[in-house]
């Protein structure tokens, strides 16, 4: 291989790296480490007691559980939405295309209020669902619904470009070689979009974990039942218990970071497997 001077678009590696570290340091590292520092006013037993209180445990379960369910729902339905938007031309397509991004732009409190109005027992959806025996508003289901709403764009927007990259002839080729539609999907298409799906899932999941505005209206905020972790943190702050609030925040932070790390590793692994596939 011929060696030649590598040219960079951005000036100077050292300059850009210096900038990167400064930027990330000021905006992410320092704020987050000050979060850890604030918990140091607690002794270890106090910290442990705060973060393992029954209410905190119930809140972790709800926050992680509902966020996971919401991200999973978005993976399934977000993939469908992305598929339809990429593969079909239909009237109103560009309208749907812009609708998808709306949850990004809408203030979450507005989303929460609107969803609560729809799903409460007097609302358009709620009155019928309640007749069928489903209680959505003021239950953990409601929490998951709100989190699904705010997470949808993440999956659609990460999967869409990948789907656009896969040419329809790949499917045709598979079909000519005798693959059934199911085989085409599981062997050809799915492996190609899996990394994108995983990162869409991660983004939606991470977004849902920190969500506050849309959830407090629809959850009903009942201790031990429908109380999310961000609300618990706000509750601590209302008592001027800064240390307690940051202790719980630190637990969330560590847990989320570990989870995101795992998903990132998974994503990298599936990416590598994809590239290693013969003929891919």
């Amino acid at each position, binding site marked *: 291989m011929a060696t030649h001077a590598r040219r960079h678009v951005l000036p100077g590696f050292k300059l850009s790296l210096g900038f990167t570290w400064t930027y990330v340091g000021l905006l992410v590292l320092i704020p987050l480490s000050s979060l850890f520092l604030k918990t140091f006013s607690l002794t270890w037993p106090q910290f442990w007691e705060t973060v393992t209180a029954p209410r905190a445990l119930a809140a972790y379960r709800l926050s992680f559980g509902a966020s996971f369910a919401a991200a999973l729902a978005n993976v399934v339905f977000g993939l469908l939405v992305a598929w339809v938007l990429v593969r079909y031309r239909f009237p109103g397509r560009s309208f749907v295309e812009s609708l998808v991004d709306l949850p990004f732009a809408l203030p979450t409190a507005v989303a929460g209020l609107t969803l609560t109005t729809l799903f409460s027992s007097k609302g358009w959806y709620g009155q019928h669902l309640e007749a069928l025996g489903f209680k959505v508003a*003021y239950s953990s289901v409601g929490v998951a619904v709100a989190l699904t709403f705010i997470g949808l764009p993440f999956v659609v927007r990460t999967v869409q470009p990948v789907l656009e990259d896969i040419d329809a002839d790949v499917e045709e080729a598979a079909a000519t070689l005798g693959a059934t539609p199911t085989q085409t999907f599981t062997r050809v298409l799915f492996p190609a979009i899996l990394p994108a799906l995983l990162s869409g899932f991660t983004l939606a999941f991470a977004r849902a974990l920190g969500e506050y505005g849309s959830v407090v*209206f629809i959850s*009903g905020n009942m*201790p031990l039942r429908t109380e999310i972790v961000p609300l618990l943190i706000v509750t601590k702050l209302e008592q*001027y218990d800064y240390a307690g609030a940051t202790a719980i925040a630190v637990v969330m932070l560590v847990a989320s970071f570990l989870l995101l790390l795992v998903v990132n590793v998974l994503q990298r692994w599936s990416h590598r497997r994809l590239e290693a596939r013969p003929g891919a």
Partner: protein
Amino acid sequence: MRTHSWLFPLLLVAFVGCSKSGSEGSAPGAVTLLNVSYDPTRELYVDINAAFSKHWEATHQQKVTIKQSHGGSGKQARAVIDGLDADVVTLALAYDVDMLHDKASLIPEGWQKRLANNSAPYTSTIVFVVRKGNPKGIRDWDDLVRDGVTVITPNPKTSGGARWNYLAAWGHALRKPGGTEQSARAFVESLFRHVPVLDSGARGATTTFAERGLGDVLIAWENEAFLLTDEVGQERFEIVVPSTSIVAEPPVTVVDRNVDKRGTRAVAEAYLQFLYSEEGQRLVAKHHYRPRSQEVARKEGARFPKLTLFTIDEVFGGWRKAQSAHFDDGGVFDAIYVPQAR
């Protein structure tokens, strides 16, 4: 130079960070005040500020502009502790103002003695709002814990207003014949078993009751109840005044450290005094808060029904005690929700 090129962005950012403008000054001859208040006083202070500006300009030939900031009472207090340059605070409960002393020494210990009536120029009380015709026949506190009655009140952990609601219920149970700490606790416990949803703030609870149609009765501040029935729907809701309730005293104070720094003490103090003046008290009454002035109260008597009122000092020995016994982590309110198994 080249080896240190990574330093450049660091220095740049540091420089930009330091040169943050600290000159939010006022034009000569004009003065601005910032009033940091809680949510439901927004309309009240729009009127008060206009009236006070006119009054100050007439008496001192100086233009005064008052900026308002509203939000949950506790959140507002934290903002001031963290450096929001409030000249005066007008919050929902004395405990939040106490924290300005405890957490940041912005005001002296005895701040509540500085103005008349515990530094609360207006009061309110806790009443019930029921649906038109009062279908469940709610007359007094004890009706709230009858079978089949659902009650809407916000979460005392996140809402200052909700803490007054809770204390009103406790005080009622404690003060009725034969009432003890145990019976009061039992009453409040059973009351919260009738609460299906805990909104994080008072306006949220009002929405849940009025717009979502949840619950048979809303426990609310009297001024909010008036607002709901007068302006949202007299044909949909009725106010029920219980036999006894608590005097809710939203206190006000000058934030000493800030007014001394900004040189606004004189006008800030005059602003708070204005709340006690005849004109201030009339505006207070107009916005459904109970005025302290006997004279104005007499004129408005019909609107503010008489009931037996008790203060937080009488029944709970002040806010600090009430807060630590009832609302801090591990307090009575938490115990209500601890799983029965524990």
